[in-house]
């Protein structure tokens, strides 16, 4: 009896094993579905941006599937995504990437939210030679490691505020400017800082304050007091949403007068909503804005995308959602050009990507970063109590004139 039971167990395990290996070897494409995998922050500190990312992915999957799907070797396929919650934790994200690849048999990955988590996942996808198109990891260090299977639809972090320095120099009659800067000590913000250092060198500008804000800090009073004392031409702040909100709160309360204030994460922080008129004239770097004139056949224009997104999810799409949707368009294009499900063929097709989406032009540089799309700058402008983000640079898409210098606090109502 015992023997029979043992035999039975062995038999069952053998069948299960066979089934597992069978399904995983075909899991990349199941029936009419192309299965993509993504670890995404649905809980933890990145959960709101994680949800924006997921909504962007889902919106594009629905749209592409509805409009005929992906055609490979004459057969139509649909996209499907397996999500796991990475709890905003890099270690967990790396584990989940491994699980997606080894257990679920996923052969194509979409990126997580944030540079930190993308950095944790990239070595895994690289090890298993899994092409990953990511939309939310902008840190420059992602693109200098020689990764061959990593593709980012967004511009790298060091480009975020370079344009702002150029703009400041231009407004200063082409003469170098004095820069005060405060950056949080995380991968992303420090890369933005490197971009400013480059721009300062290029324009001969001088950096007179260079503060690095600890991650736990939510008080910038000391930095701003220094700024008041040395009177720079431009103040640059980057520290995710917390940095943006703290900066505006304390700049307005301490009445710090600077001719130009450049930041990141204004729209993620809902700056114009939370601080209203106090945030007016802040210049913000953004990957995308709905008013840009890029087009594609799936979403039409940025404005149309924003409208559809609003209808589906009930809020205006932040750029995190737009770039995530664009990642799916890139995958679709690559599959069709590769006309195969072979990972290396898809990877080679991704390398040759050159397309326009509603989000912007996409062409990957040698490190995997998108080199075809410039960053844009918008400025918060208010009419009464109603504040909006107006694109002011580059001039090609500017809907409004850049307002410079910022009026003194004593002159502001």
């Amino acid at each position, binding site marked *: 009896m015992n023997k029979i039971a043992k035999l039975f167990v062995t038999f069952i395990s053998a069948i299960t094993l066979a089934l597992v290996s069978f399904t995983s070897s075909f899991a990349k494409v199941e029936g009419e579905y192309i299965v993509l995998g993504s670890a995404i922050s649905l809980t933890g500190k990145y959960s709101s941006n994680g949800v924006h990312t997921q909504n962007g992915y889902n919106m594009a999957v629905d749209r592409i599937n509805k409009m005929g799907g992906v055609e490979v070797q004459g057969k139509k396929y649909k996209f499907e995504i397996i999500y796991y919650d990475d709890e905003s934790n890099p270690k967990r994200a790396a584990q989940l990437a491994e699980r997606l690849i080894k257990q679920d048999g996923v052969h194509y990955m979409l990126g997580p939210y944030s540079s930190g988590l993308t950095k944790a996942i990239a070595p895994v996808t690289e090890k298993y030679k899994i092409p990953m198109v990511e939309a939310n990891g902008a840190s420059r260090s992602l693109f200098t490691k020689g990764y061959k299977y990593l593709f980012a639809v967004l511009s790298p972090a060091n480009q975020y505020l370079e344009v702002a320095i150029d703009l400041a120099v231009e407004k200063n009659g082409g003469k170098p400017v004095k820069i005060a800067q*405060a950056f949080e000590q995380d991968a992303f913000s420090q890369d933005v800082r490197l971009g400013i250092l480059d721009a300062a060198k290029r324009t001969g500008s001088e950096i007179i304050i260079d503060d690095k804000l*600890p991650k736990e800090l939510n*008080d910038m009073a000391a930095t701003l007091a220094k700024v008041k004392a040395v009177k720079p031409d431009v103040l640059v702040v980057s520290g995710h949403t917390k940095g943006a909100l703290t900066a505006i709160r304390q700049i307005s309360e301490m009445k710090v007068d600077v001719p130009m204030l450049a930041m990141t994460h204004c729209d993620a922080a809902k700056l114009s909503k939370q601080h209203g008129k106090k945030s007016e004239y802040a210049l913000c770097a953004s990957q995308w804005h709905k008013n840009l004139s890029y087009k594609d056949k799936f979403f039409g224009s940025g404005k149309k995308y924003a409208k559809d997104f609003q209808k589906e999810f009930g809020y205006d799409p932040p750029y995190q959602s737009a770039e995530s949707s664009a990642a799916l368009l890139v995958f679709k294009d690559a599959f069709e050009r590769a006309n195969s499900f072979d990972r290396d063929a898809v990877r080679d097709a991704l390398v040759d990507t050159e397309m326009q989406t509603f989000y912007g032009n996409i062409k990957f540089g040698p490190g995997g970063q998108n080199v075809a799309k410039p960053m844009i700058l918008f400025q918060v402008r208010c009419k009464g109590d109603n504040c909006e983000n107006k694109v002011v640079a580059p001039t090609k898409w500017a809907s409004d004139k850049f307002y410079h210098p910022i009026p003194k606090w004593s002159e502001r109502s």
Partner: protein
Amino acid sequence: MDFLIFKAPMLMVQASLDGILLGILFALIAYGMALQWGVMNIINIAQGDLVILGGYIAYTIYLWGIHPAWGVIISPIIMFFVGWALYKLVINKVVDRDLFISILATFGIAIVFQQLMNFIFGADVVVAQSEYGTTMLFDNSVTLPNSKIFSAFISVLYAVALVIYMKKSRLGRAIRATAQNARAAKILGVDTEKVYAATFGINAALCGIAGALISITLTLHPYVGLPYTVRSFMIVIVAGLGNLPAVAVSGMGLGLFEEFADYILGTEFRIGAVFMLLVLILVYRRFKLSKKREYLK
């Protein structure tokens, strides 16, 4: 650049005032910690998270269109009951155990609170607007947000009120008696169980006030509680238990230390300097203790 503060004397004034105003707020949080540490012998790792929860309560009433300053009244009332419930659910099981167990238990509470706040209020950083304006001194070269002055004023007010309450009221005397000797207090008819619950409630209420003040002076996020725990822990270590003036002085001292560390060592070492100071103080206290005669309990 690091020594800019010595070139501009006004910066010195600004830094000192910023430091003191911030320090008073820290002192309020630390006072709560000292109170329940002294009475119950529990180091509450969730202190900072209680503060943030208090802040979110103020933020919620702000969203309802009520001025967030009312948070300094509403938030402590709600937080008192949160503290009470927390005591009944968890803390009473660890109150006479090893210190290590209570640290583990409150650490667990901290994690649960962070996740709950993240779940309820979302992971966005939020601020409540008080629109209190700014006080300008010395020809506008020193600026003080009125919200910070307000927060320091309220902190002092509550601290004084609490001291009087502890001295005069029946419960206050019971709390002090329990802190001195729980067993003796019990024999003399003090319901120590109730005293413990009330103490934990009062601590949570103090955190609620501090949180409401933080919502109008700084920013709120579910995961920024720990720095407040660490700061109050430090203040208590320096000041000792049950010594309010010392807590106030050491709170302001820490605020000043942070501001000046920012100017002199650089912003990147501001928090690091606080931790460094903590290590130094612990080593110093250990050294002082080792000189004392030891005895077995």
